[in-house]
């Protein structure tokens, strides 16, 4: 006998409730966004560069503690050693605007350093020979290719990221002629040679 259709059971055409897809967990909200998103930095230049072992070696030279890390306050110098010219402001931004204490106590390993270096390498508007010459030409009162060493010293110690007297002495050593003048094109060539 054919089973009787239960007349009370309405043919349910309703779609079965879809099995709830397991909710993909929302990624934990990122902590207060760092000043620079290092995770997005492109590594192409470093990974493909034959200089990568040099970078690691230079980094290692700065590790005075032996923990394969360097302190925040060494980062700018390592980058300079590797041919870059970051401003202190750029480095501070990469480090998340650290406190003076952070600069001394916080350390970063090579893998943490690489994206920072890459960011500086990638940064646009890098100064070249002409930029330096034009910048110094502003102080060439007589338009004769020289600036007064004394004036340059004052500018370096009062504007921008002020330099100390010791830094300036080191920089200007042997650059002033007997009249205290600096031939700034020659000076810039000298600066860019190292």
């Amino acid at each position: 006998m054919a089973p009787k259709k239960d007349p009370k059971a309405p043919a349910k055409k309703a779609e079965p409730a879809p099995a709830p897809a397991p909710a993909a967990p929302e990624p934990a909200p990122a902590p207060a966004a760092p000043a620079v998103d290092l995770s997005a930095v492109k590594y192409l230049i470093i990974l493909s560069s034959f200089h990568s072992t040099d970078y690691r070696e230079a980094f290692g030279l700065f590790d005075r503690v032996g923990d394969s890390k360097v302190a925040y306050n060494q980062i700018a110098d390592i980058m300079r050693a590797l041919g870059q010219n970051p401003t202190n402001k750029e480095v501070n931004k990469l480090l998340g605007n650290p406190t003076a204490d952070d600069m001394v106590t916080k350390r970063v390993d090579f893998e943490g350093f690489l994206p920072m270096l890459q960011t500086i390498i990638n940064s646009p508007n890098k100064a070249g020979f002409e930029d330096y010459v034009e910048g110094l030409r502003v102080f060439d009162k007589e338009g004769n290719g020289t600036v007064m060493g004394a004036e340059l010293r004052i500018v370096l110690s009062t504007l921008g990221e002020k330099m100390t007297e010791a830094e300036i002495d080191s920089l200007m050593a042997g650059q002033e002629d007997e009249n205290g003048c600096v031939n700034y094109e020659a000076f810039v060539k000298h600066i860019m040679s190292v």
Partner: protein
Amino acid sequence: MDCHNEECSRPQEEEDIMDIPLDDPEANRAAAKIQAGFRGHMTRKKMKPEDKAEGEERQEDRGQ
């Protein structure tokens, strides 16, 4: 500040005469770029001593 160890004895009028644009953001930005280049140069010069002293310098650095 930077000059706390040195005598900041430069007379104010000397700076006025030289028209140092202390408050000009463009001038300060330009100066910072030049200073960055200078600092880069000085660090590299320090890392690259005369060849004969290279080994010794590196060791000194390590010992610091």
